[in-house]
């Protein structure tokens, strides 16, 4: 017993020193980028593919774009495993590295929201999901895609423009009862919908662990909407669509980035004809040069079908953006000027940046910290086919921060 406890203590000590050592294990001749996410926790079905995406993208950038003037870029991936306090500790580790990474990518909303003020204090720039509370009031955070209500807005606008009937199109909202799910249920969204002449007839919430949504769907059906809107992912849309099928109600579902390839692959027949707003090109546009480039690395690194999801492309998108900004800052201000202020200045002046021959479009401004384009996709036989090109999203920032 004594020996066991001693060896336990020893083990802990050794592990402790390993941890200490790993803090200094980065090469001075490379630039580090912090990449934090919930790669194994509850959000992993969505953001998990970011890991391969990021790795492939930096491989591409270091090989074909020559890093930043010949200096290699190194992403440091941290998996917080669903624990906010672990994430916080990993963040502290990233910002205490020398030299400190300027960019820290956050693929987890609660942590991004909690650390919002820390980004400013620690003088780092963070790329976060498109949820309002992590972006506003304006700090050092930038979203990698449009706010969730803005994405829905693109679809609503498109439906309204193609609407043949006389009366307004009617929409019912059924969404997760979580911070993520509720992100589309904002005052600005309702006001805007009224303005463009579509009716939101009912809003229903459901729990992330609900297996049956009968009451919610019954209530929605009583209001007779033309489309349903959701902001949920993986099991959420699956539960909705299964419920709809069981009650024999044929209605199409509109989803944001949560309804991407990963979700549709769960049961492609169910999602037939649904509409999804995404801000990147589709994997299914196989002839597109940007998708071709991405797929070269996708296949070269033996990525599986499960990685074929939006966040794989987001990993690319973020890497491309950071590469472009860092390159520009070094070009303009030299290595000495490589700091958060200059990076943010560069980001705020970014207009229609379309990397990799237009895989997406990104623009930021001092006041608006999220990209402003999205495309409407229709799921046809399990494939995501675009019905519009990149279109400008409505501006649905929280009103007080406009």
């Amino acid at each position, binding site marked *: 017993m004594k020996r066991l406890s001693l060896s336990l203590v020893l083990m802990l000590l050794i592990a402790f020193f390993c941890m200490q050592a790993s803090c200094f294990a980065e090469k001075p001749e490379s630039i580090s980028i912090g990449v934090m996410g919930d790669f194994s926790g509850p959000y992993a*079905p969505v953001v998990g593919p970011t890991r391969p995406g990021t790795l492939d993208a930096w491989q591409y950038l270091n090989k074909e774009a020559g890093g930043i003037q010949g200096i290699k870029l190194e992403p440091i991936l941290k998996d917080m495993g669903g624990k906010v306090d672990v994430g916080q500790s990993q963040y502290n580790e990233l910002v205490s590295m020398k030299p400190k990474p300027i960019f820290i990518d956050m693929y987890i909303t609660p942590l991004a929201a909690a650390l919002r003020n820390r980004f400013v204090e620690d003088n780092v720039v963070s790329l976060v999901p498109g949820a309002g509370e992590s972006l506003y009031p304006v700090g050092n955070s930038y979203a990698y895609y449009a706010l969730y209500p803005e994405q829905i807005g693109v679809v609503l606008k498109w439906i309204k423009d193609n609407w043949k009937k006389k009366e307004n199109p009617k929409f019912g909202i059924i969404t997760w009862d979580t911070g993520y799910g509720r992100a589309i249920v904002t005052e600005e969204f309702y006001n805007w919908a009224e303005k463009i002449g579509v009716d939101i007839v009912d809003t229903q919430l459901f729990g992330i662990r609900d297996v*049956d949504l009968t*009451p*919610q769907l019954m209530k929605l059906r009583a209001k007779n909407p033309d489309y349903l809107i959701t902001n949920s992912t993986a099991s959420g849309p699956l539960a909705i669509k299964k419920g709809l*099928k069981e009650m024999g109600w044929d209605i199409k579902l509109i989803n944001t980035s949560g309804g991407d390839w990963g979700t549709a692959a*769960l049961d492609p027949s169910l999602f037939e004809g649904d509409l999804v707003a995404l801000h990147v090109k589709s994997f299914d546009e196989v002839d597109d040069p940007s998708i071709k480039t991405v797929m070269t690395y996708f296949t070269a690194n033996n990525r599986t079908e499960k990685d074929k999801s939006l966040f794989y492309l987001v990993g690319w998108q973020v890497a491309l953006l950071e590469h472009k900004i860092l390159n520009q800052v070094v070009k303009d201000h030299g290595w000495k000027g490589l700091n958060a202020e200059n990076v943010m200045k560069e980001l705020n002046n970014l207009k229609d940046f379309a990397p990799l021959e237009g895989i997406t479009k990104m623009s930021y401004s001092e006041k608006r910290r999220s990209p402003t384009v999205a495309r409407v996709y229709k799921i046809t036989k399990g494939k995501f086919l675009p019905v519009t090109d990149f279109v400008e999203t409505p501006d649905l920032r929280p009103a007080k921060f406009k």
Partner: protein
Amino acid sequence: MLFLQYLVAGVLTGGLYGLIGLGIVIIYKSTKVFNFAVGALMTFCALVCVALVTNVGLPFWLALPISLAFAAFLGLLTERVGLRPLLAQPILTLIMATLAIESILYGTMLLFWEGYTISFPQGVLPGQTIFLGPIFIPHEFLYAFIVATACFVLVGVFFFKTQMGLRMRVTAESHVVAMALGINITRIFAMSWMLATVVGALAGIFIGNRLGLQVAITPSLAFKALPAIIFGGLDSLAGAIIGGLTVGILEKMAAGYIDPKVAEITPYIILLLVLLIRPQGLFGEERIERI
């Protein structure tokens, strides 16, 4: 009419809660251990079933018994590795051991399936619906309900009509007395873990068919069954099922007539009320306390 539909939905989902609850109750009844690993165990078995169907290519009717056999094995393994060495330790230590086991299972699942959502291929269970007038009864839930009822009846017969069941109940009462009566209590523990894991695996397979399986989320579904078993009583088999049904119905009624937001905590409010009025649950064994 709406009321009837809510009732049907409540009964059918309640059956699922009851099935998970049954797994917890079986272990609690014979070993007095509250199994926090139940969610991880059921997810693991369901994931194995999916893997057998999609990766190995077995038909579902063959994959199901194999995965249930795996469940029994996993239950046995858990008991052997995790709880057997802790025999005669305080109950809280045992409960912690189940948490540690949950962590190990969670990590193991991540190794094989990572964090992605895994779903059954389509058509494993016929996704038809029975329409009775305006009322609809989905097959998926109906099957779950039937399986839950069957499990309940079988386990009940096993517990109350067989020698093995009597052994289990004696062990539940007092480990020391059971030992003195010649009962090999370690074998009883192993038996109940195997039985409970198999029941849990069935629940996991139904949930997986419905929502897909995700290593970090699906285990927490087991917590949905907590109010159900408290409602029915931690040590009552009938209570698990009836508690499950009651919680299911109340949840759907609250969602239908009040607000889905309220539905989320309705079971817990009921739980508090039940605890205040009848601390041992509706069907639980009354604590016999004499000085």
